[in-house]
């Protein structure tokens, strides 16, 4: 692309610019991420070739990083669709610049997370057995179906609100016209089209929320349907959902802060967005703590030997650093930083978000490994030291996410342009009208 030629982007130039102008930074990022991805791919191929022996798993710790990351990534995916659907549904006007990013995170992370059980398979070549001889009795198949449904729904939910923006790109006509033409489905912006689209989005909004909640509930069922101490608990469904939304918001905040900086979106992502979202984060943090507290309280009061073993293992045993690290990351840091206005800056929020993401990953680790490391029989404690392959695939997963996000930002606007425009044109009137309807007295 010729550099000297300045394109006219009009009013929302900051939103168009990243699509049409490609800097050195982009190529470097893509190359680095691609390299990481290829490295991870290579190590995965060695795993397929030699067997799962290349990982650090053993008996009794038969599930390790892959399942941890599976739960973690799926959790992050709740950022999106769920938040954007709730915000849309509640007609929160400040949602407009946020929803797109949230939805993108969902779609990409879900794809990555959904592949993790395959990484975990000892015989990936026999994957098709799932299709031909699956058993719907197994929670693993519930996962397969619910994740597929969620993935389908969230992709549609990402795509449909993007149609007007794609049409805008198509109409500019400078880049990949056929591509945008294909995707824009003949959008002309007529009243009928808007009506059709809005209606579809409204239905999807309502559908996506239960699907999303079901996904993480079902993932928690993988654990709670077994008899393992520390897993066999009814609280796990909501606990996982809360954790998922919690980590999802944190991930969304990180992405927002990063791309605000990189793409200079300060105009669009204002302090107020971060304030609102971080308040939500604080609430989720407290909620998370409440759930964790209940979980362990019932465990301790139940006084079942094996349950207590595992709690002791987490509180004071080998996993104490991870456990207390999790509490600090998920509860102490968010509460301290977000409770004080002084700390509640963009930097502060960034720190909190990162700590929450790490904390939630630790939480998954704390759920999966200690229960397995303490077998019920009088066997020695299991020791789990993840191998290079497992780390590589974890880092590779993150790299793929970043790559996916970067590539998305290259082709589509990260902030919904038409929704911003719509906001400018109609919302003020709308909101005023709506407000009046809430207020006591007769509407005028």
């Amino acid at each position, binding site marked *: 692309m010729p550099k000297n030629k300045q394109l006219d982007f009009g009013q929302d130039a900051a939103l168009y610019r990243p699509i049409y102008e490609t800097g050195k930074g982009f190529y470097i990022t893509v190359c680095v991420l691609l390299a990481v991805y290829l490295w991870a791919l290579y190590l995965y191929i060695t795993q397929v070739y030699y067997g*799962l022996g290349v990982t650090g798993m053993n008996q009794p710790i038969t*599930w390790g990083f892959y399942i941890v990351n599976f739960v973690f990534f799926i959790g992050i995916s709740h950022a999106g669709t769920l938040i954007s659907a709730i915000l849309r549904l509640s007609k929160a006007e400040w949602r407009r610049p946020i929803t797109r990013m949230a939805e993108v995170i969902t779609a990409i992370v879900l794809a990555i997370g959904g592949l993790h059980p395959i990484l975990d398979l*000892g*015989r990936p070549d026999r994957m098709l057995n799932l299709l031909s001889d699956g058993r719907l009795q197994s929670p693993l*198949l519930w996962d397969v179906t619910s994740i597929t449904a969620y993935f389908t729904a969230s992709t549609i939910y990402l795509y449909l609100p993007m149609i007007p923006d794609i049409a805008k790109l198509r109409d500019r006509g400078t880049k990949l016209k056929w591509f945008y033409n294909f995707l824009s489905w003949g959008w002309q912006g007529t009243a009928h089209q808007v009506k059709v689209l809005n209606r579809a989005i409204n239905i999807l909004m309502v559908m996506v929320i239960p699907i999303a909640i079901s996904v993480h509930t079902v993932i928690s069922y993988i654990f709670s349907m*077994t008899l*393992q101490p520390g897993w066999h608990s009814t609280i796990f469904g909501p606990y996982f959902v809360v954790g998922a939304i919690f980590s999802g918001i944190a991930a969304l905040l990180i992405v927002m802060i990063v791309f605000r900086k990189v793409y200079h979106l300060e105009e669009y992502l204002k302090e107020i967005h971060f304030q609102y979202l971080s308040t939500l984060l604080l609430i989720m943090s407290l909620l998370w703590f409440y759930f964790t507290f209940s979980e362990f309280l019932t465990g301790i009061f139940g006084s079942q030997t094996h349950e207590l073993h595992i709690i002791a293992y987490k509180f004071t045993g080998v996993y104490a650093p991870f456990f207390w690290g999790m509490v600090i990351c998920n509860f102490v840091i968010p509460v301290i930083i977000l409770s004080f206005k002084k700390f509640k800056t963009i930097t502060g929020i960034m720190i909190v978000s990162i700590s929450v993401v790490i904390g939630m990953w630790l939480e998954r680790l704390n759920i999966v490994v200690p229960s397995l490391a303490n077998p019920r029989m009088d066997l020695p404690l299991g020791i789990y030291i993840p191998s290079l392959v497992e780390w590589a695939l974890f880092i590779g997963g993150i790299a793929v996410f970043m790559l996916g996000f970067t590539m998305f930002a290259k082709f589509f606007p990260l902030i919904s342009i038409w929704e911003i425009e719509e906001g400018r044109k109609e919302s003020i009137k709308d909101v005023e009208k709506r407000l009046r309807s809430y207020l006591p007295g007769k509407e005028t």
Partner: protein
Amino acid sequence: MPKWAMVIDLDKCTGCGDCMAACKLENNIAIVSPEEANVGRVMFWMDMITTYEGEYPNIKVKRIPKPCFHCDNPPCTRVCPVYATYKNDEGLVGQIYHRCIGCRYCMVACPYTAKVFNWYEPKWPDEFKSCLNPDVSLRMVGVVEKCSFCAHRLIKVKENADMEEREIYDGEYSPACGESCPTNAIYFGDIDNKESQVYKLSQSSRSYREMENLGTEPKVIYLSKRE
């Protein structure tokens, strides 16, 4: 339908480990490399658990042979996504290696840690290949395996009985571990048959099952005076 069950008399059992060896040899269980074995990837279908009770010097040590318990209400079969582990009509919990996709969910679900996994392709020196048991298939990398109560022996016993047009008599079908136990501490038979030794022993006041509170209803019954 018979319901096969095992009774292990812990008072008689010395913990000599012969059941472990018999099992490994009968079922072609792979020997993993020393490094692997010491990080917890060793494969014993019949494992030995050591427990200590009491304070020095009045310590009681008990070694408990632990095969797969072939639960009547198995937690492992419920979670298998592909029907690779299942409970059959005779109460045997089978593991079909060629169906297994290696998700290890059943290992996670088993409260008794009875299953093992082929982390690498099992290998034998060529010379040892000739002493593999031809009745039992070799497992491949990435599948879960476990004690089968030597179900391959059952096939043969049934066939013999059918050839002679009779029922299987008590004690005719016994897994390798029970057959060669030096103290005859392992009994095997049909627990639904009130005449069988296993049934009689299971009614003993000494009998107990591991973790009965879980509701898994194991079909391996231990006899112990100490419990």
